[in-house]
């Protein structure tokens, strides 16, 4: 309020009837306790929580009853004290109408709190500013806070902005959907908590300023927030910005555009343009969590529509059945019953009233058919372009509609279908009343399915090719060894036949050949390593290109490059096999020559040294093979590891024997040295693994920000990579020890 904020406008937008005065005339009331609370394990975007209670357990209010599963997840708390009466499949509020596992709690009526305290008290610090970010984020995660605006993205994850520098925190109090007044009432009644939440969030993301965007149809809320700002002396960092009422100004991307003029890149997250956006309700929940240790167990929900007589806002415990909430609001169902969770623009019609209120339930709208008539039959599209004028994302809805109808998925994608935020503005203005959003949802689903199928096929192809390549390489190596052995044997035979005098110079010549071929071999090996590294890199790039529609045209290029690299690797492997064969032959000849010379003493130092070196060489080869196997995710890793351990022992033995022979000292046998190279070898591997973890996390972030269905799968991938990393680190530490 002390700053003059320049406002920007977003393209399109509509002005539907607001219908907010029906529900914001009286204060928020506390909904009476229902007979049972039904708590779905997934009330947020990400992985469902893991149950940690059993049927029959008594739980206290605020007690954790399910723990987060993986990084993108949130715990679940008992909204009141009582008994767990069932853990079973119940229908959950989702457009699909699916059933999922829910924890059912029968309240005991005492509402007894579990012990809880502010984060300051828990950590024993006087000043909240001294609390570290990690502690704050952990508290927010532990309290199960997920975005209360609608999507329900775990807040702690969103606050982990990684490498992005954040300069602005935006609190979304626009509430542009008609009918809904939950945020309006929250801002009026809990303005201080919103401001306090903003302070904490600013501290975490280290942003310079916070903008609270509120539509100008909520003057009371704006006044309350400004008063709270003065009270908290925060008017220098935090601004309450009044924005024009226009749907969908409360869309995250649209609000960011209005307040800062920045655009979140397609497929990206706000952090990429230095912004973190949270709902005002989420901010208040953060304040509760940090200052009072109160987990997220309730929210404000608007109950409105002409089919209820008592319209207003309720403070509702999660798990409260919709039917209970409607009943206390005086619900008079019509013949054609319809109850919408959310607003009339983006909410979804509930398939049943036995569903529970969850973290994202901001509104229950029970309209009469007169108030919101059901859709009329759609007429033909006349391409009037009113939808394009209304679209806030700059799309051509009429074209997307034609592509969707014709199932021209590629064209729909080219016309940026995935930038559609499904706000419904196009359907609202369509004079032919075509359910455009429904078409887009269907087409998005079809494209995702197609992509998944393609990816699966591609992975299968890659696995197959890797397997073939490995088999070929192994065969080539085996052949080379066999040949080398056969030749060596033949040579020995020849040497034995020839005069002993001739043997020495011959052996010398062979040795020179071996020495000459070794640098050659090294060079080839280096080339092979380089080619393999290039292959990995190309594969990564290819993956990235496949994920990123911008780079789509590069996919083919990368694929071609990959094939080329693979060919090169094959050729190099053959060369190496040949070189090795030559080297082996030379070595064998050398050894046989030496053995001839030292025939009398099999334990001579020279011989022992050779033995040691050979063992060491084998160990190196095995390690390399292990690295390769791990790269390909081959199942031979374990076997190789075992072999390496055995080989290591052999090397130790050989070395000890040699040193013993060399020095004649019996104590030279104990050697701790060879463990070190193993640890050293692991360091780059660990680094690579860390990179992989980082990459997987980034991808996950992207998917989350877009709300893609791949989130759980990606999460699993992150966990898997983390496990691998842990395994490597354990190996490294054991190696060092």
């Amino acid at each position: 309020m002390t700053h003059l904020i320049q406002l920007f406008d977003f393209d399109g937008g509509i002005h539907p009837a607001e219908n907010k005065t029906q529900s914001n005339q009286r204060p928020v009331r506390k909904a009476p306790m229902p007979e049972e609370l039904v708590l779905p394990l997934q009330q947020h975007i990400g992985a469902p929580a893991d149950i940690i209670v059993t049927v029959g357990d008594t739980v206290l209010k605020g007690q954790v009853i399910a723990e987060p599963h993986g990084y993108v997840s949130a715990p679940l708390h008992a909204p009141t004290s009582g008994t767990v009466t069932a853990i079973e499949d119940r229908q959950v509020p989702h457009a699909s109408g699916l059933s999922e596992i829910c924890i059912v709690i029968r309240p005991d009526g005492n509402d007894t709190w579990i012990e809880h305290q502010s984060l300051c008290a828990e950590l024993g610090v006087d000043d909240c500013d001294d609390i570290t970010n990690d502690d704050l984020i952990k508290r927010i995660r532990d309290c199960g806070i997920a975005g209360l605006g609608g999507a329900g993205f775990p807040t702690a994850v969103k606050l982990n902005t990684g490498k992005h520098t954040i300069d602005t925190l935006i609190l979304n109090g626009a509430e542009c959907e008609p009918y809904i007044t939950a945020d309006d009432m929250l801002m009026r009644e809990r303005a201080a908590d919103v401001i306090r939440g903003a302070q904490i969030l600013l501290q975490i993301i280290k942003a310079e300023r916070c903008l609270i965007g509120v539509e100008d149809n909520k003057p009371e809320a704006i006044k309350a927030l400004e008063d709270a700002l003065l009270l908290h002396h925060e008017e220098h960092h935090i601004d309450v910005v009044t924005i024009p009422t226009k749907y969908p100004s409360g869309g995250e991307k649209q609000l960011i555009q209005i307040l800062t003029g920045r655009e979140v890149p397609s497929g990206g997250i706000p952090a990429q343009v230095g912004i973190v956006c949270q709902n005002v309700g989420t901010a208040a929940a953060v304040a509760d969590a940090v200052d009072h240790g109160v987990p997220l167990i309730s929210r404000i929900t608007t109950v409105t529509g002409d089919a209820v007589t008592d319209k207003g806002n309720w403070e509702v415990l999660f798990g409260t059945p919709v039917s209970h909430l409607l009943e206390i609001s005086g619900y008079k169902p019509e013949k054609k019953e319809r109850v919408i969770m959310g607003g009339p623009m983006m909410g979804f019609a509930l398939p049943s009233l036995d569903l529970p209120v969850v973290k994202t339930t901001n509104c229950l709208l029970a309209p009469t058919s007169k108030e919101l008539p059901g859709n009329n039959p759609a007429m033909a599209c006349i391409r009037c372009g009113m939808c394009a004028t209304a679209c806030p994302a700059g799309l051509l809805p009429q074209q997307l509609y034609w592509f969707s109808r014709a199932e021209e998925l590629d064209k729909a994608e080219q016309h940026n279908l995935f930038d559609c935020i499904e706000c419904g503005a196009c359907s609202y203005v369509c004079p032919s009343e075509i359910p455009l959003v429904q078409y887009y949802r269907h087409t998005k689903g079809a494209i995702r399915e197609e992509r998944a199928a393609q990816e699966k096929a591609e992975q299968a192809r890659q696995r197959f090719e890797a397997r073939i390549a490995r088999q070929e390489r192994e065969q080539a190596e085996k052949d080379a060894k066999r040949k080398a052995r056969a030749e060596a044997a033949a040579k020995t035979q020849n040497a034995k036949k020839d005069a002993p005098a001739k043997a020495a110079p011959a052996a010398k010549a062979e040795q020179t050949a071996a020495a000459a071929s070794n640098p050659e071999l090294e060079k080839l090996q280096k080339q092979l390593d380089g080619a393999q590294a290039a292959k990995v890199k190309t594969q990564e790039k290819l993956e990235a290109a496949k994920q990123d529609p911008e780079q789509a045209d590069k996919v083919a290029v990368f694929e071609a490059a990959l094939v080329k690299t693979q060919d090169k690797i094959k050729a190099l492997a053959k060369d190496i096999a040949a070189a090795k064969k030559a080297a082996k032959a030379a070595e064998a000849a050398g050894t046989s020559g030496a053995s001839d010379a030292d025939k009398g003493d099999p334990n001579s130092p020279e011989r022992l040294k050779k033995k040691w070196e050979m063992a060491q060489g084998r160990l190196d080869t095995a390690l390399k093979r292990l690295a390769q196997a791990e790269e390909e995710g081959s199942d031979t890793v374990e076997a190789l590891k075992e072999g390496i351990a055995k080989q290591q022992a052999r090397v130790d033995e050989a070395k000890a024997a040699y040193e013993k022979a060399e020095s004649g000292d019996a104590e030279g046998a104990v050697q701790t040295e060879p463990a070190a190279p193993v640890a050293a070898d692991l360091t780059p591997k660990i680094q690579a693994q860390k990179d992989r973890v980082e990459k997987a996390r980034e991808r996950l972030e992207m998917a989350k920000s877009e709300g893609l269905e791949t989130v759980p799968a990606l999460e699993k991938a992150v966990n898997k990579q983390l496990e691998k990393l842990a395994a490597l680190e354990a190996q490294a530490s054991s190696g060092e020890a």
Partner: protein
Amino acid sequence: MALLTLSSPHTHGPNQTSRIMLTVALATLPGLIALTWFFGWGTFINVVLASLVAVASEALVLKMRGYPVSFFLKDNTALVTGVLLGLALPPLGPWWVTVIATAFAIIFAKQIYGGMGNNPFNPAMVGYALVLISFPVEMTTNWAASFQATGNAAVGFVDAMSVIFAGTQTITDAFTGATPLDHYKHLISKETSEALLQDATFNGWLNAGWEWVNLGFLAGGLFLIWRRIISWHIPVSMLAALFLCSLMFGWDEDLYTPTYLHLLSGATMLGAFFIATDPVSASTTPTGKLIYGAGIGILLFVIRTWGAYPDAVAFAVLLMNFAAPFIDAYTQPRTYGHEKARRGLKPGDK
């Protein structure tokens, strides 16, 4: 207890295709009144006849296709096609020309392509082009002259009926004359502009009747823009292109038709606001609409000036109809979060 589960959004704005089409039809009234006032009842009779034929043809085809007839007739699109054709055809042309043009427009140019929303070409203009090419005599000699040009009163209702339905030649001769555009184009090679404008057809400046007709359609068009039923893009770019082209060549009135005749004569305003703006066959992107409109304006000038026909709205619109999908593909707006707008469609590109 089955609950209604419809997909979001659950609410709808006040827009309705049928209402939009009805408004378009009504917005032609100022132009129709001017036509009737200055040129007699011929156009009015044509509009009524064409509307009836259009609706009847539409109903017939819908029935043949097994569609609910009344539901689709309610969208009023056939009515608009009929009204526009009636306004465009020569006021004193024989009835069967109107019937053929309208029936062809609805049955062939619209329904055979799949009905409303699926026709790549403006149906009214397809019908018009058909009769213009097939019946050149009927289409060029039956233009009523304004009462100022003939010195008689405008054609009365009974006279108009007898010309249109019975082909009474004496009345036809008394009331018809060349349109100003036609007249100027053909005589300017022989006379000076000054002498030509003294001719009865021009009455010193331009024929008062045509001027008011065009202003009437302009008023109706501005009403549509104000009601946000059409956007300004196509009319503005079309008129601007026509204006600039005629300014470039028409400065010498002794060689070419002057600018004010181009803008306020013939079907210029009807074309700019009512025909070129037909959303189904026009370009739909904002930039595309500008290009599309400008293309019509340029083609209109080219055909009027160097072509065989005195007026050319129908051909100009139809030619640009061909180009509309292509223009659309290359003028997509920039989507939020994208640095650049996409251009064109590449097969296999994602």
